């Protein structure tokens, strides 16, 4: 009996090792709550600009990819501890994040952020502004003198906060706010756009230089043949192309 268990264990171990030597799957981590970049469609699958982009990049880099959703708050800790290999979640390239993880080349131009509110004529300098926690928008509001930052775990809750009067305005990527402002009569853009961040890139572990090279090549090839621009025009109308 003992022998049987032992040999089964050895066989299982050997099988596991054999599997691991095949080309490993690259796991793509996203938030799934930030349309049009990434969201869950009616079928509950990841969809959006980054779904189309990620699938195309994986085809070009000849990688097998798998999509995983993770809370925005813990998206970087879970990358560095190896629960997935790439962050593809509308994450802007900033110096602070670059200290912890590495970024691929940007796949969007620096995208303007914008304010939305229920009415015009809000003194943005001295008001309560909602933003998603851990975003470049949240750090921007925190650096504004006079304005009070109200942080939420999901971008959707920042819109809910201006609707129920908790916040005077919300700051987020313009591409995220655009569909909301067009389909929701209550919500309008206010004030001027602000340019934050250095474009959006894939977040990759610092020790994964090879994977980063593969993705950089794939991004470059999509920039060269114009297919990246086609995707940007399809999903992020109004955003600058390459």
């Amino acid at each position, binding site marked *: 009996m003992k022998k049987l268990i032992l040999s089964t264990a050895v066989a299982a171990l050997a099988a596991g090792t054999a599997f*691991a030597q*095949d080309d490993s799957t690259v796991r793509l981590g996203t938030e799934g709550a930030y349309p049009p970049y990434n969201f869950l469609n009616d*079928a509950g699958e990841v969809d959006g600009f980054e779904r189309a982009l990620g699938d195309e990049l994986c085809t070009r880099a000849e990688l097998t990819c798998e999509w995983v959703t993770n809370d925005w708050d813990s998206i970087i800790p879970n990358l560095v501890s190896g629960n997935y290999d790439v962050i593809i979640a509308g994450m802007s390239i900033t110096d602070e994040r670059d200290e912890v993880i590495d970024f691929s080349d940007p796949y969007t131009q620096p995208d303007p952020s914008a304010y939305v509110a229920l009415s015009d004529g809000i003194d943005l300098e001295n008001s309560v502004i909602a933003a998603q926690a851990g975003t470049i928008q949240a750090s921007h509001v925190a650096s504004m003198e006079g304005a009070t930052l109200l942080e939420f775990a999901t971008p959707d809750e920042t819109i*809910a906060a201006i609707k129920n009067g908790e916040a005077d305005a919300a700051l987020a990527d313009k591409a995220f706010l655009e569909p909301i402002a067009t389909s929701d009569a209550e919500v309008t853009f206010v004030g001027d756009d602000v340019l934050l961040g250095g474009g959006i890139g894939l977040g990759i572990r610092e020790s994964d230089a090879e994977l980063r090279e593969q993705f950089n090549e794939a991004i470059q090839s999509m920039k060269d043949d114009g297919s990246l621009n086609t995707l940007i025009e399809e999903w992020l109308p109004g955003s600058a192309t390459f």
Partner: protein
Amino acid sequence: MFGNCADPGALDGLAWLGCYLTTGKHMSLYGSLGTVLLLLAITAPTALLFGFGGATAARSHVAPLRWFGKTYIAIVRGVPDIAFFLFFVIALDQGFEYIRHHVLCPEWPDTVRQGNDFVVCAQAKLPLGNSPQWVHETYGFLLAVLTFAIVFGAFAGNVLFGAMRAVPRAQLETAEAYGMTRGQVTRRVLIPQMWVYALPGLSNLWMVLIKATPLLFLLGVEDIVYWSRELGGAKQPQFTDYPHPDWRMWYFGALLVFYLCFTKVSEIVMDRLMARLTLGQATAGGEAQRRAGA
């Protein structure tokens, strides 16, 4: 699900609602209900087992075992749940991978900690990087069960420790006088009698456990609260066939009803169990039962 759901924009009223409530996303919500119930069904007995082990160890005559039992109960009870769930699970996962790394690829040249990164060789990954998604999910679920069992086991251990001491000393002495060994006294007298003292504490813990299940999402398991928040958020027509404003109130309302019903049913079951266990016991409850019967 229904044949006429292809163009939900043209539907209204109940037909629309029927299609809406049967989208793939809603199926995930219903599925996550199963996840939560499964978690409770596995965690409760496991935690009880951990608690029993902890309580027995804490009562042991062997000093190191006693220290272990008391330390386990004291530490886990003292650390906030959230800290435990955030820190412990990542540490546990990395601990497993670290051990596998040393066993499976001893010739690996690099260190495991590289700056912020935790890097083990591909064979040591748990689950393996190329495993299908369900393996990753099952692994996450099992980690969750283990963490819940450790946390609630410590509380259960404390309850059982107290319950064991509440069993009247005279009964144990009588058993000893009949020549039973220490083990026999424990098995035949102490354990059968302690439940009546343990049940109020344990039923309390069960209620807390039911309400603690939303902590699952901290562990990456998508539970009913996560799906309710995701489904309830406002949806724009560009991204869904079923646009709607912020409906979280309704989803969370439904959750409220679910949890209240669940705890109510639990209460009824616990009351019955209590009545059953009190039967013939030398407690105030047992005495009341005897008088009512007489």
